[in-house]
């Protein structure tokens, strides 16, 4: 079993689960890989619910796509993950 090195991901937090899922669907439909994760404290405040984890190289494009669809994240951050 190989062990992957931790690396940095961008994370987006959303005001509602609905917006998070709409963002997930939009990005996946447009070929941007995203993974729903429990919203981490690093997003600021005691957020609960889900956040989207995304490759940092895709983050800028993803945010632009979300903004155009009125699905902008409410919080942005980074996370070390495998």
């Amino acid at each position, binding site marked *: 079993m190989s062990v992957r090195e931790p690396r940095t991901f961008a994370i987006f*937090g*959303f*005001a*509602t*689960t*609905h*917006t*998070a*899922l*709409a963002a997930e*669907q939009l990005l996946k439909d447009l070929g941007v890989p995203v993974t*729903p*994760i*429990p*919203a981490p404290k690093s997003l600021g*405040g*005691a*957020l*609960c*619910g*889900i*956040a989207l984890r995304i490759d940092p190289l895709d983050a800028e494009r993803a945010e632009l796509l979300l903004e155009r669809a*009125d699905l902008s994240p*409410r*919080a942005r951050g980074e996370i070390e993950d495998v």
Partner: protein
Amino acid sequence: MSADKRAVPVAYLDHGATSWPKPQPVIDAVVRALTELGGNPGRGAYAMALDASRAIFEARRACAQLLGVADSRDLLFQSGCTAGCNLMLKGTLKPGDRVVVGSMEHNAVARPLAHLARLGIEIAVVKADRTGLIDPDDVERAVRQEPTRAVVCQHASNLTGTIQLVGDLADIAHEHGAIMLVDGAQGVGHLEVDIAALGVDAYAASGHKGMLGPQGVGLLYLAPGLEADVQIEGGTGAGGSESLEMPAERPDRYEAGTANTPGIVGLGAAAGFLAGEGAAQRDLEADLARRLHEGILGIEGFRVLGPPPGVPRVPIVSAVHERVDGDRIAFVLDRTYGIAARAGLHCAPWAHDTVGTFECGAVRFGVGWGTTGAHIELALRALHEIVSS
């Protein structure tokens, strides 16, 4: 089996109260929700909670697509149309406001308005004609009299089947600076409803009547920019749990507490079903209701409430006999013939008062999905025999 042990009617004709049976996709969706979607939607990122969240997300989109709502976040899941009407009315009206409302409203509207009247909201009632129709000219006269915050009207009557001219009423409301609030309990499913085309500001819908979904779920559309005061506060799961204020964003602002996942997922399946089958179903219902209407008129001593044959109505046919009371008719229909129909005032005393049946009530037949020509023939034969005996 004796009549009082017979749970399943031979002919179910109470679609005005609730639809039965349900289409198989609705049943399948509810079973899937209960067997596979066990997580609490919006309350976790583990796979089963996410699946539940996604199912609700998809159900909301399916309902929005069916109803012509551009942004599904403006379509709120409620525990039913009554809850939606309460939020719509109590959330948008304040002491000192004036409301113009039609006289055919169900208690889902009349009772919240009575409560609001006690808080200092002025209620001006516009009386419908004997067919149950609210004349837009009468509404315009009422709105013009004094500054008015809202016009409130049903989409269709649960007593007479009358279809109100909601789009015209919305135009009148907006011309006079008022908002248009609609109780669509009897509309969606039996009518093709395009909320954007109607131009209303709020529209409450039942999930379990013409929409064919499960009981315990309904919808409320709030137009973008129309803010309603929150009526129920609590957990919403997603961002902002640290705050004691409800989130500003829809739908969470108006959906505190754990969602009714089986009901909502079933309703989403129903919306998908209606998107494919709705037009044909509406044609069939209209034809069956017309046959029932004309057939009852052919039995001596009956009069049918609402518009005459040939005028479009939702498939509700209520009748009064000159000699036999409605409650007696409904009882014999059930016990002798296995026909489910509803007598009484139908939670609509205003409407009965308007059409002159407050003292006697009526027996109401609601046609819907699953109704057949044989059911109509059986009902007509039974009515003939009951009033002839």
